[in-house]
């Protein structure tokens, strides 16, 4: 099947070359970081995690969201998702690989990464996260590839793949829950110390992930002629709408609990992010954009006439993705470190090298997704 990825027109190859250029720049920056140290990033003693871990968090959500097409299709036999399910699975594969890469570039000693498996430490949530992510990657590669291979030969997929697919459903929930546990179980980081962190992670994932899926489907239709079907897109749009409502609802819960109880340590994180604390509010514009764009997109999605129009739907999906990316990929992680345990407010600004590595990993992911979907589209449109 792989040969189908190397059979494209000029635009296709131009796109591949473009991605390779960004990847090369990222690799160059990473080599610099390897030889000089993480001092080349904007992170420091107080804000000790930055964009890398934030991207990781966002992408675990994207990976988990595949369940939103897998579950209706395989468990409820919802036929309209027949064509889109493979896109979801391949999106999960690429997002998981990106997650692992983001963890890798964040490590001070990446050469020792195997220590996580050599000295398994069940009381560490990071150990569990590495374990469930690797498992999820394998589950999705196996199920996606096998089903697609069977389709190419025009036969039914083998029976053993069904249990694998069923297993991937609760597994998807587990990866994002364990990722939330990385943060939610730490004493003294009040922005994270909340029981709704895992539910919020899942809600935002099930909004942003299917929104990306809708966008990818539109791109595929335009570039390869592979159409996931109007009905599937409409159904996904409804899923995005509900998930986005739950996401904002849960965010509202955070605000109520913190501000009505009026406990300073519980308010500080949200104050810093949304209003500024002691005159410092580096992330305030970001968070406000996230709120406005997110709520605006939700309004569009709530109006059936707009939701079913491709143009409005595309804009709303972009809005939801941007909003949640800022919320999880910028605010949540950095906000957890401010104020510091000693109540100091230390800013964080990613450096050029850090941004270039981040783009590099995104480009690796998009390249991989391009190749996988090229194969999938070729198989699906072969007759």
């Amino acid at each position, binding site marked *: 099947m792989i040969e189908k990825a190397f059979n494209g027109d000029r635009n296709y190859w131009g796109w591949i070359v473009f991605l390779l250029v960004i990847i090369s720049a990222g690799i160059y920056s990473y080599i610099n970081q390897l030889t000089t140290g993480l001092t080349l990033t904007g992170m*420091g003693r107080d804000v000790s995690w930055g964009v890398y871990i934030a991207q990781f968090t966002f992408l675990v959500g994207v990976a988990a969201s595949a369940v939103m097409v897998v579950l209706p299709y395989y468990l409820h036999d919802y036929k309209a998702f027949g064509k889109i399910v493979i896109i979801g699975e391949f999106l999960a594969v690429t997002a998981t690989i990106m997650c692992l890469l983001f963890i890798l570039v964040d490590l*001070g000693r990446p050469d020792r990464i195997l220590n996580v498996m050599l000295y398994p430490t069940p009381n560490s*949530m990071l150990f569990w996260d590495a374990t469930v992510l690797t498992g999820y990657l394998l589950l999705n590669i196996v199920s996606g590839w096998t089903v697609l291979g069977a389709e190419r030969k025009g036969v039914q997929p083998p029976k053993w793949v069904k249990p694998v697919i069923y297993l991937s459903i609760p597994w998807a929930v587990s990866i994002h829950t364990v990722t939330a546990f990385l943060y939610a179980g730490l004493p003294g980081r009040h922005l994270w110390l909340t029981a709704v962190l895992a539910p919020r992670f899942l809600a935002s994932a099930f909004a942003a992930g299917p929104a990306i899926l809708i966008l990818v489907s539109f791109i595929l239709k335009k570039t390869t002629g592979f159409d996931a079907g109007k009905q599937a897109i409409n159904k996904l749009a409804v899923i995005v709408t509900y998930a986005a409502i739950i996401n904002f609802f849960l965010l509202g819960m955070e605000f109520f609990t913190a501000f009505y109880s009026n406990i300073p340590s519980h308010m500080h994180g949200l104050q810093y992010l949304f209003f500024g604390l002691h005159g410092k509010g580096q992330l305030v514009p970001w968070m406000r954009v996230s709120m406005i764009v997110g709520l605006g997109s939700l309004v569009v999605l709530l109006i059936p006439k707009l939701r079913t129009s491709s143009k409005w739907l595309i804009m709303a999906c972009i809005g939801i993705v941007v909003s949640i990316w800022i919320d999880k990929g910028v605010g949540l992680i950095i906000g957890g470190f401010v104020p510091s345990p000693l109540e100091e407010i230390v800013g964080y600004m990613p450096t050029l090298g850090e941004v270039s590595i981040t783009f590099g990993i995104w480009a690796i992911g998009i390249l991989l997704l391009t190749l996988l979907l090229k194969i999938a589209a070729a198989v699906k449109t072969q007759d």
Partner: protein
Amino acid sequence: MNENRREFIKKTGLGVLAGLGVASGIFPKSSFESAVASTTHEDSASGRRWGMVIDTRKCKDGCTKCIDACHEVHNVPDFDNIKDEIKWIWKSPYGNVFPGESAQFVSEETRERSYLALCNHCDNPPCVRACPTKATFKRDWDGIVAMDYHRCIGCRFCMAACPYGARSFNWRDPRPAIPKRSQAYPTRERGVVEKCNFCSERLAQGLQPACVAACPEGVLTFGDLNDPESEVRLLLEKNHTLQRRAELGTRPSVFYII
């Protein structure tokens, strides 16, 4: 649980399952977790538990003798920017060292003083719980929270987990920034975390920690918290003391007389 059985559980991978059980609260906390942190329970105090009492009333403003001694003995580099900064022991204002305690109308005298901050060698350390490689671990014979610099992968999960800001990361090669090389303790490499070790290398030689020995005012008292006759316990008996952020349940082994 005896050694053989512990080995057996590890080998069969049951340990992993057990961890899941502990995480979800199916099994009682006791047996399996003890392999990692066995003195987390007050009643299991069979060994020593090193601790410290800091009499902040005696601490002189502007004096940094204890800090200098510690950083010199342990080859702590001196970068002059807060991003790369590495510190094992330092001074901060009252509101920063005791964020929960800074209620209204704190006396001027209390506010103006500065307070020593260092790793608390918590009896129930969140950093140890978070570390995915056991590079940070609690020594079950004396309660010291120690580091294995050769195992640490530099994930900095422990830094996120420590509610006292006690940990520093080697963002760059520390060696060029060490003012005077000491032979008493190894230097570290780029990419690993480090923090106060309660001078375990000096304790092994029967010496007091470097900061305790360096203070001319007798501010710092070091000893075994599990020994009711020890000097630290007598001080705790006679004075009202604070632990930093005691409400978090980490059970710090460093106490403050305000």
